[in-house]
């Protein structure tokens, strides 16, 4: 029987990790992801899994790195300001090519910003830190999807030996929704024979995994391998959803929690006779660039809805290649100009109407 529960978006990710057989969680409290670390502290020890509260995000991401080195499924979670702290560690993980999952429950920035929701980490998550590496970025838009994408994240991480970022936001994390708890089935994965467990496990041949591909070994080989991996992911893992897109004149592009407001606005517009549709990227990297580009053949009006001053809009601009008009509903269009203000469907509807 499928269990149904009323849980927060943060807890849904926690349940996702449990259902994905994640055994090691390392974290540090920060609003608005606290429900997740608290959930893990409650549930993981009871299941005989490992929970560690680190002293900083530097430490938690490096603990994830260490645990991933040994071949276990490891994850951490954080929010914007501390996601910045993790960048060095994430870059290290990229150089070691380790599979793990990092959850970023976005809050306002820059600096300490606000403790409330926002979508201001898009560029950081998709463009990454120093070194020009790439990572898969998954963006859920409901608690149910947060639960499912967490399971997918672990699968993709192991499939490609890459770290996956789950880009949630404060709004999504703190609201409660009914979630059907069901384990997802995935195709079989390659074994982790590279994992470090002491050389006795490898017939006394040492395993040496290091974070300096440009000092030790061949830099060229590393770059070639990475490039091939990224190309393969771009080819196979692009995910998005469309709603009422076939006959739409105006296409809303939105991800995460704002996609919910955008969707409501889209249905309201349809009721008023405006042909609007919604395009929702699920993978922010690889970005569904071709799918958007294809739409520009007959759709010339795009409205990007995101709770920041314009980040995903850059990817949409690249995708439409100048063949369409793009407008933005951003954090300037919040109902209140404060941390707790948010983008409501009313404002999105107004913008849709301004196109006509």
């Amino acid at each position, binding site marked *: 029987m499928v269990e149904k529960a009323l849980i927060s978006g943060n807890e849904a990710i926690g349940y996702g990790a449990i259902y994905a057989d994640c055994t*090691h969680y*390392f974290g540090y409290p920060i609003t608005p992801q606290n429900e997740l670390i608290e959930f893990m502290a409650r549930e993981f020890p009871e299941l005989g899994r*490992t929970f*560690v509260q*680190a*002293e*900083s995000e*530097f*430490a*938690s991401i*490096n*603990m*994830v*790195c*260490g*645990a*991933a*080195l*040994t*071949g*276990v499924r*490891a994850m951490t979670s954080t929010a914007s300001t501390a996601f910045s702290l993790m960048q*060095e*560690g994430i870059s*290290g993980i990229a150089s*070691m090519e380790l599979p793990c999952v990092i959850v970023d429950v976005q809050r306002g920035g820059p600096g300490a910003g606000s403790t409330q929701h926002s979508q201001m980490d898009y560029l950081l998550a998709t463009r990454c830190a120093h070194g020009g590496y790439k990572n898969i970025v998954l963006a859920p838009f409901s608690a149910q999807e947060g639960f499912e994408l967490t399971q997918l994240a672990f699968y993709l991480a192991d499939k490609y030996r890459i770290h996956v970022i789950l880009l949630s936001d404060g709004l999504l994390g703190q609201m409660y929704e009914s979630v059907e708890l069901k384990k997802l089935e995935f195709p079989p994965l390659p074994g982790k024979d590279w994992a*470090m*467990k*002491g*050389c*006795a*496990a490898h017939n*006394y041949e*040492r*395993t*040496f*995994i*290091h*974070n*300096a591909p440009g*000092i*030790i070994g061949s830099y060229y080989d590393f770059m070639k391998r990475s490039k091939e991996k990224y190309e393969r992911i771009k080819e196979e893992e692009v995910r998005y959803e469309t709603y009422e897109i076939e006959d739409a004149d105006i296409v809303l592009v939105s991800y995460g929690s704002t996609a919910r407001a955008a969707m409501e606005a889209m249905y309201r517009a349809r009721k008023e006779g405006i042909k609007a549709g919604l395009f929702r990227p699920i993978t922010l990297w690889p970005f569904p660039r071709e799918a958007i580009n294809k739409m520009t053949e007959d759709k010339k009006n795009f409205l990007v809805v995101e709770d920041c001053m314009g980040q995903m809009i850059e990817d949409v601009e690249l995708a439409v290649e100048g063949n369409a008009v793009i407008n933005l509903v951003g954090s300037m269009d919040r109902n209140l100009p404060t941390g707790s203000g948010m983008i409501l469907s009313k404002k999105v509807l107004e913008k849709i109407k301004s196109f006509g």
Partner: protein
Amino acid sequence: MRCTNEEVISASPLRVFCILLLEEDVLQREVSKGRKMEDNNKDLRRLISGRPKCFMIAGSPLCAGCQHGTISRIIGEVIDDLGIVGKTIAVGGVGCHSMLVMSASKFDLTTALHGRAPALGTGIKRGTDGKAIVFTLQGDGDLAAIGMGDLINATVRGEKLTTIFFNNAGYGTTGGQMAPTTLIGQTTTTTPSGRSPDTGGFPIHVAELMAGLAGVAYSARCAVNTIAQYKRTKKAVRTAFQKQIDNIGYGFVEILSACPPLLKMRPTDARKWFEKHMFAEYPLGEFKNVDETKIQYQVET
């Protein structure tokens, strides 16, 4: 001595490492020669001192006279003695200190970002359910500057890890800048007129600091200048590993070592300088050796 000062100084560790990698054929020749000799006299000779079994036959990428090589070998010998090569995982920090282990060890090895070795070690220890013997190799900058928080918090968490701290009073890899352990008055490239307490602060005594922390089971400071010190150091490293094996607590050993390029001296002079000045600032000895980490007070839940 044909080796001039300039030659010693210009041989930065990374450069030597690169040279060795380029001249792999030279190394290979030596390797085959060494093996042949071993095979012939296998049963007829007993090794008194030399290469530990858990080290491959490879050249050291370190500078001439750098005592990090000696310390690395002590670690190798201890691992041999304890018979833990199959389950040992080393975590090298950023700096010269882990380079010989990196190029020669037969046990598993990884590298951590600057200062994060204890955190990475924690992940490995937990990832292997505490079965692996995990130790970190860290230098002044890695441990005493950027990674101080990571080290202290690892002990606060009660991790069962071992840390070997290579204290050479300066930054070697980056070319001889001031470290937190640099002595007052010592000249480095970032303290050209000597470290002044007014602007550069004071040397940090990590072994004493570690002894004050509840999660630490063993803390000592050693050196490798003489054969007597060598033996004491080996005993200390062994005890630090044993504390981890027995699941007692954190094992920590600070080892003083000479860095000739940092001091711009010949190796033998550098060693003399160290004996004179380092021992005055950093007293050798055991600062903590306990068989259980005691809980002082517990709140009722």
